[in-house]
C-alpha cells in the first residue's frame, strides 16, 4: 500500500506542506568503543506528525532518540530543531519533552513534585506552576493522586505521571522511548487511546519508539521501519486513517491490513539486518 522501499538514505520523508519540527541531516553515530550505532540517516519530521520508529533491537532507535534529545552528539552530520540549533530549544514554540521506558520518577518526591520538576528547573514560581501541574495531572486522569509517592502507584499510573511531567511544559515535541513496553496489554491499550487523544487535542509532534506493531499502527501518522547492523532507515509506511481513532479502528479490516504490511516490512528489515540472519 503506502510502503515504499528507500532507494537511498538521503530521501527526505516529510510532507512538503508542513514546517519541519526536527531535521536529521546525514547524521551518523559511532560510539567511543567503535560500535556503529547509526549509518548516515536523513529524516525530517514535520510539525504535528506522529512518527513511530520500529525495528529489531539494536537498530539504533534509542540512539536516534537520544540524538534528537541532544543527549548524545552525532559523529557526523547535523540536526536542526525548528530550523535552528539546540540552544534555542526550550523557548516558546520550541519546547521538547521526553518520556522513557521506565517512568523515571524521583522516589523522594510526591506525584505533584515529580510533575512540577520541569517547571521548577525553569524557576517558575510555585503559585504559577500549581495550576499547570493540576491541569497536567487531570489530562492523564490522576487529579486525586498528587499527594502520593511513586511507590504507592501501579506501573501504569507511574507511566501516566511520567507523561504528565512531559506535558506540563506544554511541549511542541514529545519523544517517547518504548513508554508502554513494560505494561500489560490492557493497560497499554488504554494509555495508547489516551495518548492518541492528547496528541489530537494538543497537536504536539511525537516521535515514538515501540516494539509493538499494533501500537505503531494505532497511533501513528507515519511509521519508520529500521534495520540493524548497521542501524539505518529501512522503509516507511503512512497510516492513512483519520483521527480520532477508537476501538472501531482497532478491530477494522484496514487495521489488520496495516498490521500485516508492517509485519512483513519488519520481517524483511530483520532479514536485512546483520544480526537478523543468525536468529
Amino acid at each position, binding site marked *: 500500500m503506502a510502503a515504499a522501499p528507500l532507494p537511498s538514505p538521503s530521501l527526505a520523508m516529510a510532507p512538503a506542506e508542513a514546517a519541519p519540527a526536527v531535521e536529521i541531516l546525514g547524521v551518523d553515530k559511532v560510539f567511543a568503543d567503535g560500535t556503529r550505532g547509526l549509518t548516515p540517516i536523513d529524516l525530517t519530521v514535520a510539525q504535528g506528525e506522529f512518527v513511530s520508529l520500529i525495528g529489531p533491537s539494536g537498530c539504533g532507535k534509542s540512539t536516534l532518540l537520544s540524538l534528537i*534529545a*541532544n*543527549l548524545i552528539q552525532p559523529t557526523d552530520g547535523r540536526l536542526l530543531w525548528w530550523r535552528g540549533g539546540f540552544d534555542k530549544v*526550550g523557548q516558546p514554540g520550541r519546547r*521538547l*519533552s*521526553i518520556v*522513557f521506558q*521506565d517512568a*523515571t520518577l*524521583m*522516589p*523522594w*518526591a510526591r506525584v505533584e513534585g515529580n510533575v512540577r*520538576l*520541569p517547571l*521548577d*528547573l*525553569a524557576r517558575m514560581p510555585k503559585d504559577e506552576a500549581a495550576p499547570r501541574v493540576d491541569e497536567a495531572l487531570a489530562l492523564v486522569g490522576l487529579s486525586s493522586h498528587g499527594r502520593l*509517592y*511513586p*511507590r504507592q502507584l501501579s506501573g501504569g499510573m507511574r507511566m501516566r505521571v511520567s507523561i504528565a511531567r512531559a506535558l506540563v511544559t506544554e511541549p511542541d515535541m514529545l519523544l517517547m522511548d518504548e513508554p508502554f513496553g513494560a505494561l500489560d496489554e490492557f493497560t497499554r491499550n488504554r494509555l495508547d487511546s489516551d495518548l492518541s487523544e492528547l496528541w489530537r487535542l494538543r497537536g504536539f509532534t511525537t516521535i515514538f519508539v515501540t516494539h509493538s506493531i499494533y501500537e505503531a499502527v494505532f497511533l501513528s501518522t507515519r511509521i519508520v521501519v529500521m534495520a540493524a547492523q548497521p542501524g539505518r532507515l529501512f522503509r516507511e509506511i503512512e497510516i492513512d486513517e483519520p483521527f480520532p481513532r477508537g476501538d472501531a479502528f482497532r478491530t477494522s479490516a484496514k487495521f489488520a491490513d496495516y498490521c500485516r504490511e508492517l509485519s512483513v516490512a519488519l520481517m524483511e528489515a530483520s532479514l536485512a539486518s546483520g544480526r537478523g540472519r543468525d536468529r
Partner: protein
Amino acid sequence: MTPLAHSERFKTYFPPVATGIAMLAAWEAACRWFEIPVFLVPAPSVVADSFLNNASSLFRALGSTLKVTFIAFALAIVIGVLTAFLFVQSRAIERSLFPYAVMLQVTPIVAIAPLLIILVKDTQTALVLCATLIALFPIISNTTIGLRTVDPGLANLFRINKASGLQTLLRLRIPSALPYFFAGLRISSGLALIGAVVAEFVAGTGGRSAGLAYEILQSGFELDIPRMFAALFLITIAGVVLFVAMAGLSAWALGGWHDSERRIEA
C-alpha cells in the same frame, strides 16, 4: 487470643524481651545454685545492686563518654560529608586521597591512640580525635557512593530540562545520596562510641573527665567485678540507644519513599 498478641508491636518486641528475661533468670539461678563467687561472675541481682550504689559515678562516666562520642560523631559527619563532596568533584581528587582514607580505616585505632595522646596535650581533644578517626570512613565512603549513584534516566531528564549544576546537586544528587548517607550514619554512630571507649582505655584518664572505660579499669584494679559489669551494661545500652536513634532518624527522613524503610505489607 487477645488483641495484644495480634499487634505488630507485640510480635516485634515480645520474643527478644522474653529471651532476655529467661537468660537473666537462668544466669541468676546458676550463680545461686552453683554458688559462683562474686569476683568471678556476679549474679544479675548483685550487678543491679552495684549499679544502684554506684549510679552517680557511673552516670557521670557515661556522660563523659557520650560527650566524646557525640562531638566525634558530629565532627565525623561534617568532615565526612565535606570530603565526599570533594571526592565527587573530580575523580582525580578522589584517586589521590582515597587510598589515605582507606589507610586511616584499616589502621587499628588502639595502635594510633597512644601516639595521639602523646602528641595532643589536651586529653579530651585526643579522645575526640581518636573517636572521630574511627567514625569517619563509613560516612566518607557511603556518601561518596550515594552522590555518585544517580538514576541515569533522571540525570538525562535534568539535562534535557537544562538544569544548572546547583539544581542537579540539590534536587538530584543529594536526595539520591540520602539512603546511603543514613546507612553510613548508623555504622558511624556505633563506631564513634567504640572509638571513644577505646581511646579512654588507652589514655586511662581519671579525675573529673573519667569515662566508662576508666570505671571499668578502676573496677578491675579494685576487683569490684559487679561494678565492672554495671559499667559494661551501660556501654551496651548506650550503643543500642544510639543505633535505634539513628534507625529512627533514617526511617523518619526516608520513610515515605525509600525501600529500605518500607514496612512489609502483609
